[in-house]
């Protein structure tokens, strides 16, 4: 905390804090530099690390280091994009990977920066907290010799007939300042030049410490979330039920310390999913403007069922997790009969969004078909149109003219060798095409309620109707409540630190030879304080009221320029008073 004061830093209590600490530290470091043992080396490193300059440097470095994460695709957010990016940039894609530029926020160098920053922070906060604790318990600093050197200075004169001697004036001044929230100590009360020191605004430093400490709290909370949290995804077609067990997830990302016993087996059933499309904004017709999923939930298998609405920005919380609506689409219902006439597959097929207006791709795998396994690949269009060039497209997100266009294959789907397969993709290399535009049989085109008989007696496929599906993300993050609490604490600390002013006031009184009581006071702020002059005015008014002095209209009086009086004695500063040798700024002792 720099003392931004134009006071000659004679007294050590005045020139306190960081500024001086820094100087001492630096002096120490300089002195120690030539012959450093291992301990000296460590101490030197520690002093450097915890200096304000290093903190500033690391902060700026952190800002710079965060930037590449926005320039290159990041693995945690988008692993497939990263893979593609490396493929697309063979010359430097790999190099960026070795530099961890696709994992910036978990990279060694990014971690190093913020860990160093936080070590520096701890190294800074702990000694400051101790020092502040001591400061809060010790008395205000002793009264400086020349109050007139303080940034705010003023004098008051109590007339002789008021009957307030110097000692009484100082105690009543102490009372005034106490009422104003200062901690006050009166010195030399019975002496010739009684004085008082007062201080307030300890909350500033407390706020600063709370702020910095809370940042550590936020970091730790984030780490806890990474250790014990988990997240997963699931697609639910209308009518489907999700049960919170590992097999219930389509995709699951456990935290480092996750245990499957953490999962509470609640269930969530998607009853219905409604979308409202924009039908009135110019240029935005057909944009979804409302998603609303009606779900039935059960806390555990035996709990009563509950109806809830899941919306974007409005997750459902269940069993310590939150469930978010993150995607949706159409799932055409199909029935496939095999060459032997048996139903080999029946149900919804989740369409993957490919283009505007829910233009979706579909893949149907029918491993149970006999004698040959069947596969289908194609598109679903909720409102099918054909352009003049013969290209199909979806003209609207609503179900005005649903159409399923498919190619078909038969052969071995390759599902039996146990290798996991993506349900949205089909590998047709080992399959024999049955239907395609370039084949004699042509492609398959189905409207709801229609069916198609595959060539060569391979079976039939019928399009029974359309359901909607939703994609949900399920998250559990035990750290996030703590992160919020620490963040709020940090803001509170920051506000205190920036808006509480740490101020000191000193008052000294003395008796003029003609019987008047002369009062001088000075104010000093620690750190930035643009309202110190206002405080000086307020103190002046309060003291004037206390002693029933005529309120002087011009507070600037207290800032008399030295030109009218070279040594600024109180007598000189007050217009009517004659110069006095007994001015408190005379050659008296410093107490």
């Amino acid at each position, binding site marked *: 905390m720099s003392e931004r004061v134009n006071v000659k830093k004679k007294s050590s209590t005045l020139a306190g804090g960081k500024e001086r600490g820094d100087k001492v530290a630096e002096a120490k470091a300089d002195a120690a530099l030539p012959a450093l043992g291992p301990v000296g080396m460590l101490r030197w490193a520690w002093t450097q690390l915890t200096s304000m300059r290093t903190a500033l440097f690391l902060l700026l470095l952190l800002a710079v280091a965060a*930037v590449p994460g926005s320039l290159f695709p990041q693995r945690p957010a988008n692993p497939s994009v990263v893979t593609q990016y490396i493929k697309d940039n063979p010359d430097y894609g790999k190099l960026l990977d070795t530099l961890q530029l696709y994992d910036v926020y978990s990279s060694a160098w990014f971690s190093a920066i913020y860990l160093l920053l936080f070590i520096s922070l701890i190294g800074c906060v702990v000694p400051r907290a101790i020092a502040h604790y001591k400061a809060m318990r010790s008395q205000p600093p002793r009264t400086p010799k020349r109050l007139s050197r303080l940034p*705010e200075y003023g004098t008051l004169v109590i007339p002789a007939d008021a009957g307030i001697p110097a000692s009484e004036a100082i105690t009543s001044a102490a009372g005034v300042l106490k009422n104003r929230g200062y901690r006050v100590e009166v010195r030399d009360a019975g002496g010739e030049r009684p004085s008082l020191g007062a201080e307030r605004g300890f909350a500033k430093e407390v706020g600063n410490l709370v702020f910095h400490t809370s940042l550590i709290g936020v970091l730790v909370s984030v780490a806890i979330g990474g250790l014990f949290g988990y997240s997963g995804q699931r697609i639910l077609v209308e009518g489907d039920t999700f049960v919170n067990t590992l097999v219930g997830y389509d995709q699951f990302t456990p935290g480092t310390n996750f245990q499957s016993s953490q999962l509470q087996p609640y269930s969530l059933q998607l009853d219905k999913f409604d979308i409202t499309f924009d039908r009135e904004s110019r*240029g935005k017709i057909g944009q979804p*403007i409302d998603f609303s999923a009606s779900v039935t939930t059960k806390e555990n298998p035996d709990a009563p069922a509950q109806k809830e609405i899941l*919306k974007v920005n*409005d997750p459902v919380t269940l069993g310590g997790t939150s469930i978010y609506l993150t995607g949706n689409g159409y799932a055409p219902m199909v029935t496939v009969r095999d060459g032997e006439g048996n139903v080999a597959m029946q149900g919804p097929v989740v369409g993957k969004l490919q283009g505007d207006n829910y233009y979706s791709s579909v893949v149907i795998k029918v491993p149970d078909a006999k004698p040959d396994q069947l596969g289908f690949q194609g598109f679903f269009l909720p409102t099918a149109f054909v352009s003049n060039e013969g290209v199909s497209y979806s003209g609207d997100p609503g179900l005005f003219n649903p159409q399923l266009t498919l190619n078909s294959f038969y052969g071995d789907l390759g599902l039996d060798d146990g290798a996991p397969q993506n349900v949205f993709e089909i590998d047709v290399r080992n399959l024999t095409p049955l239907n395609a535009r370039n084949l004699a049989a042509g492609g398959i085109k189905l409207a709801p309620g229609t069916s198609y008989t595959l060539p060569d007696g391979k079976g039939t496929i019928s399009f029974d109707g359309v359901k909607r599906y939703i994609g949900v993300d399920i998250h559990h993050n035990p750290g996030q409540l703590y992160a919020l609490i620490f963040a*709020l604490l940090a803001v509170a600390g920051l506000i205190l630190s920036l808006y509480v002013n740490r101020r000191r006031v000193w008052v000294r009184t003395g008796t003029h030879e003609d019987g008047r009581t002369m009062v001088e006071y000075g104010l000093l702020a620690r750190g*930035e304080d643009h309202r110190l*002059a206002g405080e000086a005015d307020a103190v002046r008014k309060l003291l004037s009221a206390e002693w029933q002095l005529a309120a002087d209209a011009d507070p600037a009086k207290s800032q008399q320029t030295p030109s009218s009086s070279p040594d600024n004695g109180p007598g000189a500063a007050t217009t009517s008073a004659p110069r006095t040798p007994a001015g408190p700024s005379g050659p008296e002792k410093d107490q």
Partner: protein
Amino acid sequence: MPFGINETMGQYSELFMLLAAGTYTVAFIAFAWDLAKSSKALRAIDLKAAQADESAKVPVAAGAAARSESHLAGPAGRTERPSSSTARPAGTGGGGVMTADGDMRYAAERRAPARVAVALTVLGAVIHGAGVLTRALGAGRVPWGNMYEFLTTGAFVAIAVFLLVLIRRDLRFLGTFVVGLGIIMLVAASVAYWTPVGHLVPALQSYWLIIHVSIAVLSSALFTLTFAMSALQLVQSHRQKTVAAGGADKLGFMRLVPSALSLENLSYRINAIAFIGWTFTLMFGAIWAEKAWGRFWGWDTKEVWTFVIWVVYAGYLHARATRGWTGTRAAWLSIVGYLCVIFNFTIVNQFFNGLHSYSGL
């Protein structure tokens, strides 16, 4: 379900925006005229003063000559900083270079063009406000759901904040800058980002849009003011050094601008408020992200840049308490911070893919 769309309101709004931009343009000219005229008038005063060989007759400089030495020190090589320097008129920063009040309080002397300029800006802001309001009514929601609306509403907030500060402080020397920026924003909105009134996508339908974005816009408006002040501070500090070293004062209009130290002190105070605002922006953004996407922090591009801005301004606050970093270096940090704000708003919104990519383009 959101309210309906009212196209007519939307058209009124666009008309108001146009009128506001026109009014601002006249105000801009008046502000510029004020700068030019004042610099001429000041030169005339100087001339007279020099002729009379009585520099004490230069209005503010007379009182300022007797100021404590800290005010004379100027920002260069300053090691001790007055804690309450802005509380008093700190007139000079190197012997008669400065005529403007360091306190940035209104002086007695009247600047007619500046008064006209402020009056026009107020008029423009009223029309502009009507434009923002009708936009909100037309869309049936808060008027900050896409780039067009961020820009038009943001420009309004920036100018309104400027006018509010003007009530207390004489920052009219910033007029050309703030009003000029307002015009640029309005023009950019209408030309490059025009979007008809429309509904919000579901991802934006949240009360957090109201809280998070409004605080972000307010903080950005404050950062805009401090950016201008920091830029002027650099110029002023350079000029003060030149003049102190006996060089010629080529930037006469800078006399209207307070000393580098006063600029630094006021911009610090405004930056402190804006930093708190930005901290809230960050926090509320995180809370909203948790509600919408299930994680409160995911290093999405927009999040990254919001974080970078936060760290840069934290660096700025630190710099102000670090020896050797006050003054010019701190001013540079404030400028860099603002460039990041601009970058975050323009480039990131448009060219980076991320979860925040619903800028309405």
